[in-house]
């Protein structure tokens, strides 16, 4: 039986559908940014940006960019009606203090115990940069990871133990890949959903870790 991987657009839409009305969400740099474009208009979801925005709006029209109004990825954004600005201390109190309902992060690896590695490949010549990833990992009530299931070389990013430097321990609650949606449970990964045509056995074989139905 054959299967087709979910597109990034489908992954982003799947995540957006899981965000409840009224949630405060921090969307990480990279692939997760697509989620912002999929938020259903009938829900009121507040986007938080670590650099001091609650109620962040979409990218402005060309020519309307303001260098003082940017997101965590330093891209121009807008502010919704009802949004507000604050300093970094307040912003990271929101993150570290458990006030963000959902953080959506990219990752290199997620382990079955909920560990996440997403800030460094650990290569000796790499220039490290961590930003607010560790604060989100440790502080958000729920941590969603959005990533491809396999690396370009076919290695699973779902692992029994992370080999890359960790961002946070035991913090991931759910993983959205292009093959499956997986919950992190005390027993390990539990499959919530798979792409059509993929069997649990095949997903387990690709992942190299035990998966629970």
């Amino acid at each position, binding site marked *: 039986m054959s299967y087709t991987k979910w597109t990034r657009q489908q992954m982003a839409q799947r995540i957006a559908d899981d965000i409840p009305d009224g949630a405060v969400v921090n969307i990480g740099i990279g692939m997760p940014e697509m989620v912002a474009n999929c938020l259903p208009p009938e829900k009121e979801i*507040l986007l938080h940006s670590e650099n001091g925005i609650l*109620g962040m709006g979409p990218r402005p029209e060309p020519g309307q960019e303001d260098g003082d109004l940017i997101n965590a990825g330093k891209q121009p954004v807008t*502010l919704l009606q*009802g949004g*507000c*600005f604050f300093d970094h201390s307040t912003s990271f109190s929101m993150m570290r203090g458990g*006030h963000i309902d959902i953080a959506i992060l990219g990752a290199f690896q997620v382990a079955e115990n909920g560990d996440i590695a997403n800030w460094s490949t650990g290569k000796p010549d790499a220039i490290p940069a961590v930003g607010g990833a560790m604060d989100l990992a440790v502080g958000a009530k729920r941590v969603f990871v959005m990533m491809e299931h396999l690396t370009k070389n076919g290695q699973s990013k779902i692992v029994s133990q992370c080999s890359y430097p960790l961002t946070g321990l035991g913090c991931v609650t759910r993983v959205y890949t292009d093959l499956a949606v997986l919950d992190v449970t005390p027993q390990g990964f539990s499959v919530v959903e798979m792409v059509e045509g993929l069997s649990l056995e095949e997903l387990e074989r690709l992942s190299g870790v035990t998966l629970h139905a």
Partner: protein
Amino acid sequence: MIDKIYSDALASLQDVQDGATILIGGFGGAGMPHTLIDALIAQGARDLTVVSNNAGNGTTGLAALLAAGRVRKIVCSFPRQADSFVFDELYRSKKIELELVPQGNLVERIRAGGAGIGAFFTPTGYGTALAEGKETREIDGRNYVLEYPIRGDFALIKAEQSDRWGNLTYRMTARNFGPIMASAAKTTVAQVAEVLPLGALNPENVVTPGIFVDRVVKIEGQDGAGR
């Protein structure tokens, strides 16, 4: 849609449990949420732990809650005042427990609760009776006491303006503990003098972002200090 506005103070406090920890804003009368405290008295929860700078003034507000016999313990910095006779009587007759905390440690402990800090070393109180039995450490030639976070089940605060997302502004020194307490409770309830449409508050001037506020009660007329 997010709408945190409650029309009724009592409705905003229906789920306060016996034994809950309640952070109550105010410095003296300024910023004290009288309407919410009256609602808490009507709601009936008992055996409460109250965290507040003072232990009540006169016979209204926090003093009325104490007089109603609902408070098992109070955590505060300045209980004794000219008009703290309700507390004084309860304290002298050992009907209330007092944890006395230097004011700066009180607000920093509440801040730590809201900011996810596990503990902090403060110089305030080192070597005094209020640090007795606490862990101390010399850091960079200075002595510090280790203090732990305070978190509340509820925070009851008084603010000036709000919108339906719970963004708040305050009025003069009524601000005091409001923004910090709002961050440190599972459920934060703010009584406000005015509810404005979304977008009416200048985003530069919001003092407490709505993320820290769960419920907003619009009060009518004058309530305690101010105007």
